[in-house]
């Protein structure tokens, strides 16, 4: 049974939308006592999931810290190959997108579907821009110059013998972060489609918006730490 058998008669009487995904038609699963409990449970689950994501990135941060401790010159030399203007621009883009997605949650809470859609679209544009800048202005020129991780390293003008290791950490860290940007964008597209087609989110039903937004903020949080660690060291 994928949908509700019969729409709520009250809704039919008022002539409101009858699609089961319309936010006023949404109920809660049978094993919860009420919708609030379900919302809290979903949000708690999301926070636990976010903590696993943080620990996943902790591995990268730990490798970064250890090698920066062991090879500070390599880290300084490697960082000089990165342009802080691209990193800074991407930071601003992610912060803006975090703000729009937070505004989107607010719009859903207030039942303003148009504002929700608007905010999500801006967020997705930001996500696209971020990945574009990352790929087009950073990864591709660097890789074609041979500034690549590990044995792929073929840049002849290295200042420090440990630079390949720096590039390994750089590509793995930013690469996994970019992957999370894409996953987050995928979630937001899912939310956007449902918001456009079914008006699925409103004051009593915005769990999915909230949780996707939390995921997006996490992507932002990780970047807040990656940016100075990669771009702003000497």
């Amino acid at each position, binding site marked *: 049974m994928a949908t509700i058998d019969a729409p709520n008669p009250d809704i039919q009487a008022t002539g409101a939308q009858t699609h089961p995904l319309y936010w006023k038609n949404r109920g809660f*699963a*049978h*094993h*919860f006592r009420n919708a609030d*409990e379900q919302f*809290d*449970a*979903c949000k*708690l*689950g999301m926070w*636990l*999931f976010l*903590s*696993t*994501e*943080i*620990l*996943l*990135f*902790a*591995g*990268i941060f*730990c*490798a970064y810290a*250890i*090698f920066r401790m062991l*090879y500070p010159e390599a880290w300084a030399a490697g960082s000089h190959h990165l342009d802080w203007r691209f990193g800074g621009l991407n930071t601003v883009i992610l912060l803006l997108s975090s703000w729009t997605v937070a505004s989107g949650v607010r719009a859903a809470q207030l039942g303003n579907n148009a504002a929700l859609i608007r905010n999500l679209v801006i967020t997705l544009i930001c996500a696209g821009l971020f990945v574009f800048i990352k790929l087009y202005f950073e990864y591709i020129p660097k890789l074609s110059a041979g500034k690549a*991780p*590990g*044995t*792929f390293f073929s840049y002849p003008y290295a200042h420090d*013998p*440990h630079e*390949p*290791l720096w590039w*390994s*950490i750089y590509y*793995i860290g930013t690469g*996994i972060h970019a992957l999370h940007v894409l996953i987050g964008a995928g979630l937001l597209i899912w939310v956007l489609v449902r918001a456009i087609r079914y008006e699925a989110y409103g004051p009593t039903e915005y769990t999915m918006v909230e949780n996707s937004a939390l995921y997006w903020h996490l992507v932002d949080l990780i970047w807040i730490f990656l940016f100075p660690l990669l771009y702003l060291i000497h």
Partner: protein
Amino acid sequence: MTTAETTHDHHDEGSYLTPKYGVMGTIWDWMTTVDHKKIGVMYLFAVLFMFFLGGVAALAVRLELLEPVRVAADGTITGQLFGPANPESIATGNNIFNRLFTLHGAIMVFMFIIPSVPAALGNFFLPLMLGAKDVAFPRLNLFSWYIYVVGSLFGVFSIILGGVDTGWTFYTPYSTTTDADHWRVLLMVLAAFVLGFSSILTGLNFIVTTHKLRAPGMGWFDMPLFIWAIYATSIIQVLATPVIGITLLLLIFERLFKVGIFDPALGGDPVLYQHFFWFYSHPVVYVMILPGMGIISEILSVHARKHIFGYRAIAFSSLGIAAVSFIVWGHHMFTAMGELASTIFSALTFLVAIPTAIKMFNWIATLYKGSIAINTPMLYALSFLFLFSIGGLTGLPLGALATDLHLHDSYFVVAHFHYTMMGGTVIAFLGGIHHWWPKMFGRMYNERAGMIGCVLVFIGFNLTFMTQFFLGTQGMPRRYASYIDEFQTLHVLSTYGSWILLAGFLVHLFNFIHSLVAGPKAPPNPWGGLTLEWETESPPIEHNFHHEVLVQHGPYDFDTVVPPHCDEREFPLPETPASH
């Protein structure tokens, strides 16, 4: 315990096991079920199958060690089990031996023992014991089972392709350089990576369920201790498993692309891999043992008909173990680290003894003046107390820096962790299966056969692994296919022990099959338990309870409460309430 009439009555429901749609329909129903009970049973069969695979590998390893491999003066070879008997075959035989013990370790750790108690018994009983209708995220639960199956298939596929010889820990550089012409090491690493997600999702689900879905009237300190243990386990699963995710991902990058993070050829450090690996894998040994400890708390109090001694101490010690587990991982690497870190980790390691000993003393105090029923679950619980004490106490010389340097990577270590993992977790798991078998499948098993099986397992286990303590102190290193002649007597005893162990498991297997086919029907509450799973039918109905449950007594109030569905003559209350 009373029940409250609510709108969610489930009076006319059958058992969750009742097939409804014909053969194919039933299979489809099970494959797409979101019912935690069915998922728990599916996990149970999956992990028992993996236990069988890992067990076969273990028996083969023991068989090879029955005799040392020797080349006589005339060129004849003795004791070579794997490969043809010619001098060149010794390397081949050793290679096969390496693959077998890796296979045994990887399967037993990642595919059997980590999901064993939490995913199988935990899935089935956590919602029941909380009085909930299901876990918080039922679809995620099914998803995690499928992830488990996919991960296990990767592992099995890697074995079919020829297996890996890195050891279950995938230490670099073994894991980045061996079998360089093949994908199977990657497949095995990928299997462990995928299985991690299954573990994370199960833990996440259990934490949310425990927080949000406790029955009305059930406070945190009205929860059964099994739930406390599973809760502490879940915290570790959620916090530690992501780190193995990134570790194995880095390992995959390292092997595929040679990025150099763990490779001294590029300035990296292989010991960093060990730090990453044990940051996960040390907490995970408590993922393995904590649920077992939870089972023991349940079995001892129910079958001794005694209020658990020191409820809060046991509950908090579970959380204490979970907390301490994150700061002691270095004791796996004393020979690899610098002295400063080794000393700090050695000192911190002894913290683990405190919460563990608290539990042990509380269990023993629970038995004091109890009315102890000698049956299979109780025998297993008593075995646990004995074996786990040995396992825990032999951990002390391994945690002490000076003695560890001598015992490191010897059979002493092998015996120690088998006493904790097998003598602890597997024994508790078997006890738990017997304890909850009537509830899960609605049939009683043959008590006499169960007790014979338990005694065989106990004797076989001790014969197999007690000997290895002596071998280890005498200098037998682990992971070797051959040894000096002086060790043969102990090795032979150990191998004989593994056969007795096998006999014990086979007795249990036939007992379970017999119970499913022809066992007498189980009453709802055969042991007189007070936790909520005994409130409902055996086996439980589709939605667990006929009515929404309302908790009005503690899980261990055997002094004051007549157990549900039980006759007061069978489980009499004491004349005067015991004074605490």
